[in-house]
């Protein structure tokens, strides 16, 4: 995981549910690129292509609510999105994003301050987000969980552990 994430933002509102992020009919796929072709398409056919022009999503409350589908996170990654910053996340999306290696940040004050197309810089070492002249702090992930995200997700983390652990 990069220590600085930088990019243009696309802005969503509150309660963006995982059916909107990736409709159930595409859950037959797990490949990030393939899923991303349908990400947010219920909001309009042009959405998947349009979102490729942005690198960071900023959302309001309860991002990723609804279904526990892990592909919601995978589809966002497939769009080339490097981070999601939301006022709050649903717990299933929060877990899935970490396990899927998608960096997420909870920052309740950012949403109302940003506009679509703004530049954002996220500094992981300092736990700070820089926007225009302002900086916003976000809580650090618990150490026990950070390792998973930093290894690139739970599958990679497990694989690393399997390699390290002695054969029974």
């Amino acid at each position, binding site marked *: 995981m990069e220590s600085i994430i930088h990019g243009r933002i696309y802005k969503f509102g509150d*309660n963006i*549910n995982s*059916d*909107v992020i990736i*409709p*159930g*009919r595409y*859950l*037959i796929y*797990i490949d990030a690129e393939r899923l991303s072709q349908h990400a947010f*398409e*219920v*909001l309009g056919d042009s959405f998947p292509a349009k979102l490729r022009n942005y690198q960071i999503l900023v959302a309001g*409350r*309860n991002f990723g*609510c*609804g*279904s*526990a*589908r*892990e592909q919601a*996170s995978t589809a966002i990654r497939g769009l080339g999105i490097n981070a999601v910053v939301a006022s*709050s996340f*649903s*717990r*299933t999306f929060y*877990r*899935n994003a970490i*396990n*899927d290696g998608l960096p997420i940040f909870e920052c309740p004050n950012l949403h109302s301050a940003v506009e679509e197309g703004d530049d954002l810089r996220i500094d992981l070492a300092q736990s700070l987000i820089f926007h225009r002249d302002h900086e916003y702090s976000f809580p650090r992930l*618990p150490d*026990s*969980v950070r390792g998973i995200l930093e290894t690139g*997700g*739970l*599958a990679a983390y*497990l*694989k690393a552990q*399997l390699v390290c652990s002695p054969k*029974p």
Partner: protein
Amino acid sequence: MSGAEIHMGLTIAQKVLAAKAGLSSAVPGEIVEAYPDLVMSHTATWRSVSVMNKIGATKLFDPERLAIVLDHISPAKSEKNAADQQVSRNFAKKYGVRKFYDVDSGIAHLVLMEAGHVAPGDLIVGTDSHCTIYGSLGALGTGIGYTEVTSVWITGKLWMKVPESIKIVLDGRYASGVYSKDLMLYLIGKLGADGCNYKSVELYGSSVSDLSVSERMTIANLAMEMGVKCAFIPPDERTREYLKARLEDPARYRPVYADPDARYENEITVDISQLEPMVACPHEVENTKPIGEVAGTRIDQAFLGSCANAKYEDLVTAAKILKGHHIHPDVRLIITPGSKKIMLEAMNSGVLQTLIESGGLVTNPGCGACAGDGGMLADGEVCLSTANRNFLGRMGSNKAQIYLSSPATLAASAIHGVISDPREFHTT
């Protein structure tokens, strides 16, 4: 430090998570490594198998803790589905997963509870957000993704944050024509889709002890739509009775209760006798309205199904209203029983016959139209559904609309062809 702080009472979630992590206590906010009693995977099983193959793991922590139910797309409707299901079947055989239920069985949650795999105090995780339903029997159920399921298969454990708890006290009795679905739509509308995000909810009150296990399942299922991590209805005589005939090992009946001095972040009291039938309007479950404000809305399809409301009692409620009536000629009524056992019971009691004679189409048990498997909607169509989600595009066209209601409201509406108050069919 005062004695009260040392002997702080524990909520049900604190007790279950502490026990499964091998600790004597756990405080909200603490992250524990917990060992679930059961890890459920449904149609997503093949994805977890693919992760297992990718990382090169070949050993399960304990095959007895796995349950696999093929429910979301049943039977297979494409070669891809068929191949994915084949992967799941072969995996279950290879690793000796005894709790394997194929496409004939029904919705995972209902199947596992019917089969006696869910006991009070259990910790159950699974590839489905509506795992919260296990709280209807006093178990801690919560949803996780498919990669995490693989991780639990292999390591037997996962990290879990101990949640804060909210107490909801229900007083009174439902008026005629009002059900737990209406209560939950009311609560979701009042508290919002994230009203209980990451929280554990415990339900108390004289009303709760009056409620059937089926109605409790609807409550714990819909609690997910307020964002809960888990929801509990503390076990009582009804719970014990339900499980008596089902638990393989009666010694597994070990209810977990909160301490009298347990700490709750919030307490909410609802007089359920004041509730009216409620409807969730497109495209969010929190967008709820009393029936009077939406009555008259034209519908094209009525779907009686899902883990929220396709239990035997739900089919009976709908059949009582539909008996002697025929549905409106412009409405398709799709009935998808929650499980094979429910379907058999409804067949033997004549309920299925009533539903079919009234113009209903009865499908095989499973998730069906709720998850977009059959019963898809065209542009501009309107569906009234007893399921738990009305999100944009969930049942087909992105230009369709989904409303949610109780089985009673659904039956009354199917007869009239417009969203209708079920109380006209209740004579008491």
